[in-house]
């Protein structure tokens, strides 16, 4: 080493600290992310062999140990679509109210507090609520209807918040221009703002329904059944559903084939990740097409 130029010990130690700390962050991130990927891939590998035409389209046989999961798939579809029927219009309308109509006052703040609370209520408490109101008080019985209504209220906060956010991103100038051309408030919202916010709204809807499709606790005592020999005939019938089916076959059926379990999980995962992917696609496409 040339004389006179000595490495600064403080700089060196801070350099070491820097390197070590940044690696620590990378390590932590890997610890979060790798298990997720591992789980998803593991389920795909273990579940793939049991996926067959029969598995998808047949009824379970021999106490779930053989056959397919058709009624559970159909049930989850029913539940998801039924939830959408209630929560999508209500959630979008509420999002519109918050973004486009609500004055900045105490009432609006109260609404926001309510939404934050709805978002935080444990899913099993929604289940209790659904049981108390829809199943018992309104006498819908253990039914698709009761489950859908319960899931709807649970998904509402997601849909409302994403709708509001998507609407707020639409430039204010469009609203002013539309108003100046003689549009009423609703006309501006319906013809200009909402169409521009639609991709964001759709993303929120999909994410909300994704949650509804995968939830078990809210439907546990409101609408699902362990096994049904036929598909539900009306909204007042109980139904089978994938998440509940998974719960049952992985905890309460002795001698259950592990492969069928993984297969069922894979089908649910396919549902949920498919919706996730769809939401991302909507977002990416919209960003590319956006005019502002």
């Amino acid at each position: 080493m040339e004389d006179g130029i000595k490495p600064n010990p403080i700089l060196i130690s801070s350099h070491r600290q820097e390197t070590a700390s940044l690696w620590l962050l990378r390590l932590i991130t890997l610890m979060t992310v790798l298990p997720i990927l591992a789980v998803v891939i593991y389920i795909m590998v273990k579940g793939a062999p049991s996926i067959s035409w029969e598995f998808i389209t047949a009824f379970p046989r021999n106490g779930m140990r053989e056959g397919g999961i058709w009624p559970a798939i159909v049930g989850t579809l029913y539940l998801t679509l039924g939830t959408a029927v209630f929560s999508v219009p209500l959630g979008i309308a509420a999002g519109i109210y918050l973004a486009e109509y609500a004055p900045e006052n105490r009432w609006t703040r109260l609404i926001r507090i309510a939404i934050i609370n709805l978002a935080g209520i444990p899913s099993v408490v929604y289940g209790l609520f659904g049981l108390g109101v829809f199943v018992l008080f309104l006498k819908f019985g253990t039914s698709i209807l009761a489950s859908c209504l319960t899931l709807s209220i649970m998904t509402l906060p997601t849909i409302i918040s994403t709708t509001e956010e998507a609407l707020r991103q639409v430039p204010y100038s469009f609203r002013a221009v539309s108003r100046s051309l003689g549009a009423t408030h609703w006309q501006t919202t319906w013809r200009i703002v909402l169409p521009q916010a639609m991709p964001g709204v759709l993303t929120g809807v999909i994410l909300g329904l994704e949650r509804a499709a995968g939830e078990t606790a809210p439907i546990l005592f409101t609408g699902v059944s362990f096994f049904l020999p036929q598909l539900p005939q009306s909204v007042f019938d109980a139904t089978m559903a994938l998440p509940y089916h998974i719960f049952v076959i992985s905890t309460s059926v002795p001698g259950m084939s592990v492969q069928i379990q993984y297969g069922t999980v894979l089908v649910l995962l396919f549902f949920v990740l498919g919706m996730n992917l769809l939401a991302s696609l909507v977002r990416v496409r919209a960003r590319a097409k956006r005019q502002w």
Partner: protein
Amino acid sequence: MLPTWVSCLFRPPNENDCMIEQTPRERPINLLVKASGYSSILFVILILFFLLREGLPAVASADLSSLFGTIWYPIEGYYGIWPLLFGSIIVTITAILIAIPLGIGTSLYISEVAPVWIKNILKPIIEILAGLPSVVLGFIGIQVAAPLLREGLNLPTGLSGLTGAILLAFIATPTVVSISEDALNTVPASYRQAALALGATRWQTLWNITLPAAKSGVLTAVMLGIGRAIGETMAVMMVTGNAPVMPHGLDAIFLPIRTMTATIASEMGEVATGSPHYQVLFFIGIILFLFSLTINVVASWVSTRGLKRSERSLS
């Protein structure tokens, strides 16, 4: 100052432009939109009302000393909720102790260190985790995590509080990551540039400047993570071993336990409507509701970020 919800009771919502600039035909639409906006308040009230209606009678029918006893054995009429409360608390605390470093570390990495392309990979993965149904995680817990932990730690059973806590940590992590990342992103770039210009390393900047500046948001993230963990049902129910017993020491986390949520989920299906057992389960629901209410209200106080008005200048 009265709290918001009290003062609201005395002031009716006022009408503004939107309800005036309307054609007669739009009046019902606008009213419908407004009603939808207010519906959330109605739902919260309804939920609280029905929980109270079904759950409060428990105080009378199961009497208080039994309710706050230490034995949960409904068949014999013992409705002590302490074991369940402790079960929830132990599992949640352990879970959040794991989720804090994972969640905050990951959010720091994503927002402060990672290059854009890595960010674009990481974020969807975190979203996948957020979207995984808890029953799927519970299933993996039974099939993979429990056997691993039993072998690894040489426990009598893998279905324990610890297994539940680990799953919960992963369930809470996406919440922590996304909220704390948002908070970090709102720290002005000038703070970082100033620190870096003064010769601070990236880590020093991040640890001494950025993280403290975002601390209220990060705190919110942790609180909502706790809320997420304490309310989680299926995953914990499937892997904690379902033993509603009073913990005797710190090693309770390695033994089977039972949370409040799991108790509701596993017993509600078998009780007679209106029975004391039924009422007590709703009473536990009230406790959970109040927990989440408190956490969320406090969290939203901690993070009163002003809503920024979008650009409004046309002239």
